[in-house]
């Protein structure tokens, strides 16, 4: 038997030295025992379950606090807890934002199965959003929490700017999926500004950009959530059709307009009864935009295709191919990548083939992405054709993060709580 082993050894050895192989240990005279290689198990095997449990609990609690109890303080407290747990304790991974990529990958790569935890983290917030709006953003998401904590002197972003910037998340979402589909890595994780904080350390560039986002966050409330977060797009859609949603007033809106500047996220839609502008020419404008829609889409499809090809170096095979080409040609110094490839013995032609496939994938993906963006922009223009008639102040379901800051502003709230005065008094706070 042992000989068989030895034979294999020799052959293995002769074939590829360095390949996995066993050698007979020296015949020690002293009583020497071989130390065992220690292999510590992955941390937090148990955490999978804890995390899920905490997530469910937090989401449930958040929904109740926002829609039932209507307590901003409660939400804030829960938010701090989640920041501590999901953020600093669990180091910001797993997060549903990144999970978008895992789910996408599991759909296209047969050899990748998305871990159950990740799947749950991806789905649950969406389900809750379908039922109660973006309560996840309000109190559970650590990225949201760390920003919300530093909202010190929020200023209102002009609607025009906000609307424009709110296209960005769609771009990020599209790009992230495009890259994952074509083996370009996890864009969202790379652009996660806070994970370095949660880990209390990391690449300088991450820390710096994170710091900048937080700085901006002191005056522009939750910039990442509003103008970058790709998961927010999905939550927004879900929240649009949510079964119930947080309301500004506990019962009836009296149009006192006290809540107008309550929301640092500009998510409050004012009542516009008797507003002449509300209806005038809306139909016409909408129709005009609807007509230009195909054109917009077409343009973006073209641009997307080109940009897609340009992005293909995100895929390592493409980079490798270029590197090797450059070297064969003498235009570049040999790099580890190419040496490894040559050593691996995969035929060059195979790589070329792969690259062609990838680039095609990028172009096609880019076109789709373009189409999507064109559609988003077109629809937004149509929606901006005019404001539909609103009789009372209500949250913009897609934007509202259910943070509950507006409760305190509503005189009805105070009446309801303790039939007191309808004017907000001093000890009300607007930023915790």
């Amino acid at each position, binding site marked *: *038997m*042992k*000989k068989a082993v*030895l*034979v294999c*050894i*020799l*052959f293995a*050895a*002769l*074939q*590829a*030295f*360095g390949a996995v192989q066993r*050698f*007979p240990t*020296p*015949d020690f*005279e002293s009583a020497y025992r071989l130390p065992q290689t220690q292999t510590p198990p992955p941390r937090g095997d148990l955490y999978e379950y804890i995390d899920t449990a905490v997530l469910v609990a937090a989401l449930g609690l958040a929904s109740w606090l926002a829609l039932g109890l209507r307590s901003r303080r409660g939400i804030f407290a829960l938010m701090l807890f989640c920041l501590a747990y999901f953020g600093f304790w669990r180091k910001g991974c797993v997060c549903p934002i990144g999970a978008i990529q895992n789910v996408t990958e599991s759909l296209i790569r047969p050899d990748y199965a998305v871990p159950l935890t990740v799947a749950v983290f991806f789905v649950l917030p969406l389900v809750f959003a379908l039922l109660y709006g973006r309560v996840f953003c309000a109190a559970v998401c650590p990225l949201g929490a760390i920003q919300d904590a530093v909202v010190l*002197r929020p*200023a*209102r*972003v*002009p609607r025009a*700017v906000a609307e424009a*910037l709110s296209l*960005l998340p769609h771009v990020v979402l599209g790009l992230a999926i495009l890259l994952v589909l074509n083996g*370009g*890595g996890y*864009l969202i994780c*790379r*652009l996660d500004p806070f994970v370095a904080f949660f880990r209390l350390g990391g*690449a*300088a*560039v991450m820390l710096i*950009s994170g710091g*900048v*986002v937080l*700085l*901006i966050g002191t*005056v*522009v409330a939750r*910039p990442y959530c509003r*103008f970058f977060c790709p998961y927010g797009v999905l939550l927004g859609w879900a929240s649009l059709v949510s079964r119930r949603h947080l309301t500004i007033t506990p019962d009836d809106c009296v149009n006192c307009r006290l809540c107008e500047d309550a929301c640092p996220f500009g998510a409050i839609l004012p009542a516009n009864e008797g507003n002449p502008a509300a209806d005038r020419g809306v139909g016409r404008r909408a129709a005009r935009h609807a007509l230009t829609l195909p054109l917009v889409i077409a343009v973006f499809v073209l641009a997307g295709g080109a940009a897609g090809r340009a*992005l293909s*170096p*995100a895929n*390592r095979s493409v*980079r490798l191919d270029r590197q090797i080409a450059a070297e064969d040609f003498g235009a570049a110094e040999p790099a580890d*990548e190419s040496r490894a490839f040559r*050593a691996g013995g995969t035929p060059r032609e195979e790589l070329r083939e792969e690259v062609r496939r990838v680039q095609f994938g990028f172009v096609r993906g880019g076109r789709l992405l373009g189409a999507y963006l064109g559609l988003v922009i077109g629809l937004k223009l149509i929606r901006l054709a005019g404001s539909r008639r609103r009789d009372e102040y209500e949250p913009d379901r897609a934007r509202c993060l259910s943070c509950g800051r507006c409760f305190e502003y509503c005189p009805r709230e105070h009446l309801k709580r303790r039939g007191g005065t309808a004017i907000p008094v001093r000890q009300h706070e607007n930023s915790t």
Partner: protein
Amino acid sequence: MKRVIPALILFLVLAMAYVLWLKRGTGGSGNNGRPPDAYVYDIEKYRATPNADLLFDELAGFEVALKEPRGIAAGPDKGLFVVGDAELVRLDGEGREAERIALKGAANCVTSDGAGKVYAGLADHIAVWSPGTTNVVHWGSLGENALLTSISADAGNVFAADFGNRVIWRCDTQGRLLGAIGGKDAASGSSGFILPSPYFDLAIRDDRLWVVNPGRTRVEEYTFEGRMLSHWGRSSMRPEGFCGCCNPSHIALFPDGRFVTSEKGLPRVKVYDAKGVFVGLVAGPDMFAEDAVGLDLAVDSRGRILVLDPARRMVRVFAAKG
């Protein structure tokens, strides 16, 4: 409202930063800002061998039609023998395949005594083939653990290096076991063969047995009875020494007593004189594949060095310059 404008500018700046960063990300070597080659162990510099240092010219080698050629030996008449994939192949002086003899099992080493009789070392036993015949005599097994990695024979003796048991078997030409050499033995001054990896080579010349003791990076001289007479060789990355922990991997002897050695790690073939003094390089590392191993050696009757290059599945021929 006023405070917003600078904030927005900042925001856009940030966006830019993201884009650049993304490009850097796609660009690959994100090294957390460190020098890209921090902590790189560069052995490339030992691989380069200037042509001028080579004492030998490489002639056109010839390919061997074997999947895994393992051992090579020079025959008496210009011809040579190569074993591998359970086959023994005889090549003529021009490297054309002359004969192909099937063996029972994969052979690792081969030798030819003066008379032209050919001995091949299979995993645990020796097979003998006499020219002109097609039948191969398989001797008895040398034991469960035996794994022959080298063999050498003269008129009366056959020596086989057994990596599995870390000994050298001595048989007569009929296959009768005459004895074993090796194992720690203060009396003979031998401290055993130290074989970290399965390369264990030997060669005989006028009643002296030369054995590679790779663990000690040296070549040892024994009498046929197994008494160690002398040894030479030391470890060094420089050409005059044997590189790495356990080299040389193979040796061969010139008729005039000079040695040819081959190494792994830095695959290189070198010549030492009869006293073990470094003479010069035959082939440098950059002439072989990076992970070339098992470069079995032979010296043919024309004094040319034959190197078996398993990676390229060919016999490479080197002749002295000038």
